[in-house]
Every structure is written in C-alpha cells, then in structure tokens.
C-alpha cells in the first residue's frame, strides 16, 4: 500500500517532468528538466529492483548526459525555431498514443506467465565464477554483445571526432571555462576527485558479485576526469597521441585476445577455461573500465578544436 503510493508518485513525476521537458522552448530549461527526469528515472528503476539499471541511470543520466547537452547548448547559437504545423503535431501525437496503447495492451492483458531465462542464468553462473547474474549475462552468455557494444562506444567517439575541423585533426578539445570566476572549483576538484575515483573503483569491483560493474564505474571515473578538466586542473589530451589511442583500444583488444584464446583453450570464441574464468573476466573488466572511462570523458570533451602545434 505504502509502496504503491511511492510508486504512483514516482510514475506521475516521471511523466510530468517528461512532458514538460518536451514542451519547453528554452534549451537550458529543457536540459535541467532532463537532468531531473534522470533523477526520477533512477528512483523508478530502484523501485523496480533493477539495481544495475538504476546505477547506470544514476551515473549516466545524473552525470554525463547533462554535461554533454550543456556543452552542446553552449556551442549552439540561439535560433528562433518555428513551431511545426498543428497537423503534424497532432499526427505525431496520435502515433505515439497508438504505440503506447498497443504496448500497454500487450503488457497488461493477462498472458500465460512469460517464460524467462532467469533460472537458467543462475544455474550456469557457477562455471563463470561470478556472483552477479547480470555480470554473467554480460561477460559470459552474451559476451559477444558486450564486446561489440564497446566497439559501438568507440565508434561513437570516432563519429564525434569526425566533426573536427580539418586543421585541428590530431589536436585537443578545449574545455574553456572562465577561470577567474571560479575560486572554489579547483579546490573542490582536488578534494572530490580522489573520493570519486575510490567510489568508481569500488563500483567496478563490487560488480562481479553485486549490482555495479565496469560501465557504471567507468562512468564515475569519466565524470571525475571531466570535473578535473572543468576545474582547469588538467587539459584534454591530443587525440593524435598514440598512448591515448592505445588506452581507448585496450579494452576491446584485451577482450578480443581473451575471446580468441578461448577457441583453442576452451573450445569456442569467447569461452573461458573453467579454472581461469574469474581472473580472466576481471582482467577484461579492468581493461574495459579504463577504455570506457577514457572514451566517455572524450565524448563529453567533444571534437578537437585546438590545432596541434599552435600552443605548447
């Protein structure tokens, strides 16, 4: 009963904030609305006991997407956007309503209890040495998906870089902040970043047996790196540097190498020899954490705009 009240409140707020965010015309206001939406979504996932998802939403929605949108809004020049014609808006609204209604019908109508793989996932978990079934799905049963998703993230970064002006290729992204106005920021960064790194590492570590994991932890680490850049404590690196490229590629390379080694050693691509499963998976997770953190940080930093060699 009490739980239901909480759920209803969260659901109403999620929908309300979403509607308002879609409708608002001011870009800054929409971004603030989107951050609020992310916070509420975190609560919703937490109430659904999807703790891994809630953690991801907290890390991504609460931290990184807001900053990406903000940096985009700074780059945009204010333009007067014409409202779409009323007919088009009604049509889109009707389409969305129809899809929602159909989804609601499928989800709510009484069906035979949906089959689930949850039991099978747990049965085989022991052979991977992991305690968190989500980690089992990500690193063992569907490791191919996870591997390819890391390539997708890398490609997304490369897509951002592809927007670099030709002259700035190989240079570094600028994170210009009017430093004079920000007395407390460097101090805040120096104090918070070590704490954040500890928390990020903890979230990665705990992921093997409890909700958490490389992606969430990497997001926290990336946020700390971005904070260091925003506070002027460090600069974004030049994208032409070989060591940076190696750091970005390290996760997929380690994953791929261990996956290929599985063909002779364990009989299949991305299979782990039983005795070594847990250490190998941990090795992959550590490499992926570093690569994903670096990738996310650079995604936020954006395409390079400082020509290489122009300044020291």
């Amino acid at each position, binding site marked *: 009963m009490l739980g239901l009240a909480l759920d209803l409140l969260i659901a109403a707020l999620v929908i309300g904030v979403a509607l308002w965010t879609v409708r608002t015309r001011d870009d800054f206001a929409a971004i603030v609305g989107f951050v609020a939406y992310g916070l509420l979504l975190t609560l919703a996932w937490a109430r659904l006991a999807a703790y891994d998802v809630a953690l991801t939403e907290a890390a991504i929605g609460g931290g990184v997407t807001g900053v990406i949108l903000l940096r985009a809004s700074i780059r945009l020049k204010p333009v007067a956007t014409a409202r779409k014609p009323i007919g088009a808006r009604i049509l889109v609204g009707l389409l969305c309503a129809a*899809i929602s209604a*159909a*989804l609601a*019908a*499928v*989800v709510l*109508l009484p*069906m035979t209890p*949906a*089959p*689930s*793989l949850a039991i*099978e*996932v747990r049965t*085989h978990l022991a052979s991977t040495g992991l305690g968190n079934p989500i980690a089992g799905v990500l690193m*063992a*049963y*569907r*490791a*191919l*998906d996870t591997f*390819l*998703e890391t*390539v*997708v993230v*890398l*490609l*997304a970064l*490369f*897509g951002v*870089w*592809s*927007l*670099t*002006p*030709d002259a700035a*290729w*190989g240079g570094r992204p600028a994170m210009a902040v009017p430093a004079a106005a920000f007395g407390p920021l460097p101090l805040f960064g120096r104090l918070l970043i070590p704490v954040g790194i500890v928390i990020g590492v903890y979230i990665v570590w705990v992921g093997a047996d409890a909700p958490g994991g490389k992606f969430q932890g990497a997001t926290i680490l990336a946020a700390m790196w971005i904070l260091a850049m925003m506070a002027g404590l460090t600069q974004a690196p030049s994208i*032409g540097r*070989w060591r940076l*490229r*190696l750091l*970005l*590629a390290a996760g*997929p*390379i380690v994953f*791929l190498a261990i996956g*290929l080694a*599985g*063909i002779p050693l*364990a*009989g*299949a*691509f*991305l*299979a782990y020899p039983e005795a070594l499963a847990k250490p190998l998976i941990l090795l992959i997770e550590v490499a992926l954490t570093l690569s994903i953190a670096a990738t996310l940080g650079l995604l936020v930093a954006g395409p390079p705009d400082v020509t290489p060699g122009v300044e020291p």
Partner: protein
Amino acid sequence: MTAALMATTPGGLLLVLAVVVPVIGILALWLVRARDIEWVAIATLAVNLFLSLATLQAVRASDAPLVYLVGGWLPPLGLALRVDGIAAVLMAMTGAIVAVTALYARGQFGFDPQGPERRRPMVFWTMLLAITGALNLIFAGEDLFNLYVALELLTFAAVPLVSLDGSRDTLEAALRYLVFALAGSVLYLLGVAVIYGAYGTLDLVVLSEIRGAEGALLLAIALMTAGLIAKTALFPLHLWLPPAHAGAPAAASAILSALVVKGSFFLILRLWFDLLPPGLGTIGANGLGLLGAGAVIVGSVLALRQARLKLLVAYSTVAQIGYLFLIFPLATGSEAASPFASLAWTGGVLQLLAHAFAKAAMFMAAGLVYEAIGHDRIDGFRGLGRLAPITVLTMTLAGLSLMGLPPSGGFSAKWLMLSASLGEGAWWWAVVILAGGLLAAGYVFRILMPAFSTPDAPAERLHPVALTRELAALSLAVIAILIGFLPLSPWPLLAIGRLIQVSP
C-alpha cells in the same frame, strides 16, 4: 532443425572471423603509422572478401547453414551465429563491393603517405571497415538483440560518412539521417523488448518453433518493421536519403546506397519470412507492397526531375528499394509450398544483388565524372563520352541493369517478379514494375543522351584519373550485367537452411 540440436558446424568459425576481422582492422588502423592506414584497411577487406567467399562455398558444399555457438553456450541462453543460403550470398556480395570500393577509394580524401594523419582518410577507412563488420553480423546474427547491436554499429558507421566533407549541407543531411536512424532503432528495440517479455528468448530459431499468432508477436513485428523501414528509406520515410547519399563523397555514397540500406531491409525479410506465422501477414504484406509501389513511382519521377547526377542517382535508390518491397505480397501470395522456392523470392534477391552492384558502379562513375569535368550538372555532360569513355561505359552498363533491359541482373529480377505477379493474377504489381522500368529508362537516357552527343567545343579533362579507379567502377557494372546470365528459375541456393514454416 530444432534449437536443441543446434551445434557448431564445421566452418562455423568463418562466421566469427567475418565479424571479428573488420574489428581487428579498425583497432589496427588507430595504432599504425599514418602512412600505413590504407594498406592495413585494404588488406583487412581482402581477408574479409576471402572469408565471405569461403562462407558461400561452405554453405553450397554442405547444402546446410553454417552455425557457431559463441562461447559454447546454447541459445536461448547464449548467442549463435548462423548463415543460411541467402545470408551467404549477401555476405559475398558485400565482401566484393566493399573490396572494389576500397580499390576505388585508394589515395583519395587528401591521403598523403608522407604527411601527418589526416581526418578524412582516417574516418573513411575506419567507417568502411565498421560497415563491413556490421553487415556481416546482420547477415550472420540469429539473436534479435545481437542484431540490434549490429544495427547500431551500422548507423554509427554510416552517419559520419555522410558528413565526411564537413560542409554545412552535409552536416544537416547527416543530422537528419541520424534522427531517422535513431528513431528506427528505438522502435526496433521496443519490439525486441516485447518479444523477450512474451517468449523469454530472442533467438530466431527458437522463436520460430515456439511462437504462435499472439498479439504480442504481431505488435513487435509491426514496431520493428516500422523502425527498419525508416532505416531503409522506404517511401514515405525516404526524405533523409537523397541529401545524405548525394552529399557524401562518391566512394561513401556507393557503400551507403548499395549496401547500408540493404542491411535493415534484410532484417525485415528475416522478421517476415522467419518469424511471422504464415497466413498472418497478407494485409501487412500488401501494405508493404503498396509503399514499395509508391516508392517506385515517386522515386523515379523525382529522379527524372533532378538537375544533378548524384541527386538523380540517389532518388533512383529510393525507387529501386521500392521493388524490393514487392517481394512481400508476391512471395507470401505464391502457391509454392515454401515462399523461398518461389519465382518472386528469387526475383527479389536478384534485384537486391543487381541494384547493389549497379548502384555502387553508378555512384563511383558519378564521382569520376565530377573529377573529369568539375561538376555533375547533367546539362553540361555534352562530349563526356569522348572525355571519359570508360566511365560512360560504366554508366551505360549500370543504367541497363537499373532500367531492366536484357541481358542484365535488373532484367532477370524484374522478369521473375513480373512472372510471379502475372502467375498469381496480381496484375497491378506488374503495372508498377513496367511503369518503373519506363521511368528508369527516362532518367538513364537523360544522362546518356548528352554524354554520347558531340560537344559544341572540344571539352577538356580537368584532372587525370587513375585507370584502376575507372576499371574498379566498370567491374561492378559488368557484374551487374553478368547476374543476368543466371538461370531464370528459382535458385536452390537461396532456400538452404531457411526456417521451415509450420503452422502452429
């Protein structure tokens, strides 16, 4: 074949390599010296071509699909890769076109073997490899979420190619493409979620055995089809395609038009012929056919009215995609026991192949024309035949196939589809096919007539073009013609390993 009996087949490792080798290539590109990126990419694509041909040979030789259980886990818990006859054919097609495109693109985009790393060659080669890997996974994937990952890979690789030039117009086209593609991804993902919720599995083989005629399945397929249509640029969701494909550099346009839109189309085929229970899709199939017919007519008419060659070729893609969607009403309505054995099915696949080769050749030729005379306005083509004979020959051969004149792949495809529609008494599709052919003849002749005429003043070539690049484009046009010499009957290769449809 039952899922319980699924096991890795001999040669199954080829499928893993087809997905993994392009990824290895990408990672290598990032780490090698700037002067080495070209040959690393080309070597990767050569290996990929070899793998795809070996896959085709293995499927033909064993007369059975290749299967690989990733990680040794059996679906539905784990992921399997599976290539049947049609997938093997399309993989080989992709391998060939990508490899030839690589030869065409060598030394382009301001690549300088002595200088520092440049943006455009680096982005082009990375994304070309990524598209190759993504398409291989789309053809080999058997799990709906795994296929979603492949679609994401394909989108993120294709969009930057559109804006490779970095001009304002191409950025706008790329952004519009991205919005359409992401909306499509969301719809597809919604469908995946509905299917997992209803059946507890996403494996196509397992699903084809347990699925019934439930509303959840129909809703999921409707959502996924809508999303994939947006990615395939079927009329009326084609708005993003012409500016995107016309604004990209020629080598990129060739890949985008010939291959990338086929990836999402192939998934629609999978959904409708592997997943949908037979007999359920008649209305939907006719609807898709109707949209296809609209695309054929509208795309062709718009192509006729373009002043620039690249835009004309891009609108022609809209029209030619339309033919592909005629497969749905024709193959589901066919009286053959299995739709895969029908004339329409073979006709559709031939159309896919012929269009891919002809369109890649056409875009490459358009790029060569631009380099030869410095523009691609069709009214300025007089005397082109003397200036660039190989290129005009390429356009002629590719044009023959697009029009559907014999002997060409396009002719065989349209002939088979015509026979199917007349055989089923659905004469209206035949009208569309014929009208589309006439309109295509119109736009192809609009290009060729001035190109073959004598100029008022002797024209001058602006830039010399390497012969290998002209021959690369020509070879693709020749293949489009050669496809026309395949026998005009259902192709047994395409039926290998198709999931047999049993009414629940």
